[in-house]
């Protein structure tokens, strides 16, 4: 009996397989945040996959496609695989979704972005942390409609698409829709999907939101900085920490790696996404994706195409004659900690003095993105920004081949000595030149 059932299903699958071999539209992946023709209709959506792949490696040489047998390739010809770590799984989910809803092949524009920490910022080694991914859905004006943390399967992707279409419809139907009204509509939509802890948290944040008057939605008028997203994340973070602790038995910092692995599955951060979405839906993703990614990953995303021409030119001009100091901007999540320390103790005072001294040298304030691009372009020695003590300064020597890294827990006197030595050398060199 069982054998016959297997035989029937095998026959059925053979039939289905022969159908799948018919020519299908192959969906292709485009560069992120590219211009989209105004001719496309409002129902078109952009699916953007942001991963923590090495941005420079992905830019230079797309990741080799995993080997697969001919049959598998034929079955999945409906979609190309993006050059990211989860490309095959994403392609599979989209491929299945398109089979269920063939209209999606015309409605989805696919983009992938590698934005992880490159080896330049992880001490030269590839990160041994589990891989990460976030999937965004936005309209053709890059207004955020829905998102998930992790790699969705077909069911999760279909739910996301339906949610995104729901928001898109709201925005299209009522151009005068205020942000306030959209927030409330989405809160009402998402609330029944949440458990009590999340419902209560969402209620509290909604009350806080209501204390502010509603503003009409006009793209780019909303706060373009990442702080807005990080502020929201800070409001939801305690609930998320409790949620994952109870759902996955995560208790301490040692379980961090397990959490990162679990965040590859959208169900881990599903409720977090559900409560955040009402407040950030319709935000311009070009402005806000970095904040969203940093709030999930805990470090800022790095892309290969950052424009650091000014910085590069300045460094090139300065270095023959002067060593330069790069004052490192901390991550947004760590920005609340003042630097130099505002304390009046011995250490605080020492750092304040050394900081002032550093600013008398040629200096620039750089963030992780600029730093990664600069190290990559100038092929400088990699540094490790994930070490326990944050990097505060980098000193590039005049011969431009070496750099010194100064961390928060280093003795301030060490940096002061370096600054003094470099000042003396510069003075000597100037004297010789005269």
């Amino acid at each position: 009996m069982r054998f016959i059932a297997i035989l029937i299903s095998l026959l059925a699958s053979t039939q289905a397989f022969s159908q799948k071999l018919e020519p299908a539209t192959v969906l292709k992946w485009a560069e992120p945040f590219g211009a989209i023709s105004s001719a496309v209709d409002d129902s078109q959506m952009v699916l953007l996959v942001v991963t923590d792949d090495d941005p420079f490696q992905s830019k230079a040489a797309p990741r080799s496609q995993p080997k697969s047998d001919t049959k598998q390739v034929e079955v999945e010809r409906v979609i190309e695989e993006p050059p990211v770590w989860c490309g095959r799984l994403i392609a599979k989910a989209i491929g299945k979704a398109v089979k269920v809803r063939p209209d999606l092949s015309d409605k989805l524009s696919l983009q992938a972005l590698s934005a992880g920490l490159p080896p330049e910022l992880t001490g030269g080694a590839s990160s041994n942390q589990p891989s990460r991914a976030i999937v965004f859905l936005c309209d053709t004006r890059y207004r955020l409609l829905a998102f998930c943390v992790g790699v969705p399967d077909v069911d999760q992707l279909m739910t996301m698409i339906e949610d995104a279409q729901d928001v898109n419809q709201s925005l299209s139907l009522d151009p005068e829709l205020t942000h306030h009204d959209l927030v409330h509509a989405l809160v009402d939509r998402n609330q029944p999907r949440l458990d009590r802890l999340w419902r209560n948290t969402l209620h509290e944040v909604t009350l806080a939101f209501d204390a502010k008057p509603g503003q009409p939605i006009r793209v780019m008028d909303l706060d373009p900085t990442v702080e807005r997203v990080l502020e929201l994340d800070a409001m939801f973070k305690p609930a998320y920490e409790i949620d994952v602790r109870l759902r996955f038995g995560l208790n301490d910092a040692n379980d961090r790696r397990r959490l990162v692995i679990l965040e590859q599955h959208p169900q881990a951060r599903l409720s977090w996404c559900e409560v955040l979405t009402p407040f950030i839906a319709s935000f311009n993703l070009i402005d806000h994706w970095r904040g969203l990614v940093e709030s999930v990953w805990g470090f800022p995303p790095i892309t290969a195409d950052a424009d650091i021409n000014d910085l590069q030119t300045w460094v090139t001009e300065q270095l023959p004659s002067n060593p330069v100091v790069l004052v490192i901007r901390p991550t947004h999540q760590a920005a609340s900690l003042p630097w130099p320390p505002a304390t009046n103790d011995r250490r605080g005072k020492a750092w304040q003095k050394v900081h002032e001294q550093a600013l008398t040298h040629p200096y620039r304030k750089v963030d992780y993105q600029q730093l990664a691009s600069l190290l990559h372009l100038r092929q400088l020695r990699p540094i490790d920004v994930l070490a326990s003590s944050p990097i505060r300064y980098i000193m590039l020597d005049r011969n431009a081949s070496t750099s010194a890294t100064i961390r928060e827990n280093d003795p301030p006197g060490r940096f002061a000595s370096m600054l003094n030595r470099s000042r003396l050398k510069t003075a000597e060199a100037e004297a010789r030149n005269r």
Partner: protein
Amino acid sequence: MLTRLFFLMVAVTTFGGGALLHAVSPETIELGRGLFEREWPVKDPRLGGDGLGPMFNGQSCVACHNQGGVGGGGAAEFNANTIGIESMNIKGHSVDNDVIASMVSKFHPGFVQLNGSVVNTFTIPHRGGSSALRHLNDILYQHVPTVRSEFGGSTDASEVRHSYATPILFNYKNNSHEITLRARLFQRNTTALFGAGIIDAVTDNQLMALTKLQKAHPEISGRPASLRDGRIGKFGWRGNVGSLVEFIDQACANELGLETRRKPQPQDPLNREYRNPTIDITDAQIRAMHNFVSALPVPTRRIPDTSDERAEASRGEQVFNSVGCAVCHVPNLGVAQGIYSDLLLHEMGHELIDLNHAEPYVVRRTPIVRHDYTELVTTERSLGSMGAYYGATTTIKTNAIPIRRQSFQATNRRLTRKPTRDYKFVAPEYPSQKLNFIDLINEQIGNETDEQILSDGRQQITEEKLSVHAYIRLHYEPTRFNQEWRTPPLWGVADSAPYMHDGRAETLLESITMHDGEASGTRDRFLNLSLSDRPALIAFLETLVAPSNAPQPRS
């Protein structure tokens, strides 16, 4: 006719047409099904007992056992609730057992047994009991941050998690004493009974062989759920029930308040004088229900619709074996083909503590014969409590002698024991005893020296005896018995959410990740799988479904 045909099919399917088939008569099974689905009334005139209750969790078996058909598992909303005292401190002079009982009663009188002893767990029935008891239960639940369903359990898995995560803190002070205690709400999820007849047929030798096999494993060390009578338990989350018929017997008493010949119904702690005139369910009825449950079909494997899905499930099964899940979730156990369980107890980590603990691990049984020339033997008849059904409980007691008796004893025996000032109790992590004894022969010759009628109506007889005493000495191996759980069979797992003993895991991913203790290595290997392999393993588990021919509720 169709029903008869169904049960005949069930019987053949379940027992493979083998040796067990002869025991199954369609009429008996049908009778058992009727009893399983019956809404039991209060005060059943046919037997003269009090029928349903006085305290009960559901009005019928099928009210909770209904996922995927009659006999299936139950949602979290049907969970049974137990309050357990984790730690306690009583401050004041002369804390004796009477003081402990009195102070703990202020928290809830259900912790005080009918014989006056105090235990650290108390099962709160969802329904029934005196209005005063219900009022006390309501007060207690105000301390538990959970939303309960109309059926009495938490509304869903997240509520189970929140209630477990939040301890109940209680403080009470009177003129002479102050009690501070920390308790917690523990829950038990309804298990599916599909294939229970097959599980009953698994032999102790097969379980011992698996135990021996796992001794050589570097991570996993399951142990049999050894019972005091020498058998190995196979039923219940703690494996503390030896056979299916006992499980049904105990469930009738504990879940429905149907007193059986062996198992008293739970008593209302605020109505201790109440006695059920007789039993509420006959042995014949228990046997009929046993026959019905034994004949329930075995869960099956769903064949995925597409070749892709079949390939993924097949790969998932390989991954299931390769990461080590199959060491405990053994695919085949004797006659139980496809059970995915070893039916052994495993230490599952601190997060899965429940104070209704597993039975201590009996590693050796030594027969002893002794001649005692004089012995004071006191006998009492114990009355019903619900705790042991969900697992054993711990007695809270002190060895201090009550102050009012001390002066007398000190005068006569020169005892110098001082009255206890403060009393502290912490729920034990391990069994407190290393040895225990079971009487075999206790032939006594002697005179009755004392006879008392206790305040609760029981008779206490004290005799001086010359006795020949044969007994078995049980040697316990200390194990973390609060966190030992029987490996739940995975057959039918796709139709039995929520997961874990209390239904705290809503999804299979959550459930796997909650594995700790012995299973932490396997859990980590699962998490270190590629992102495509993890869903494959879950896809495999999702093929393990409830039997398609399970009987469906008639109403």
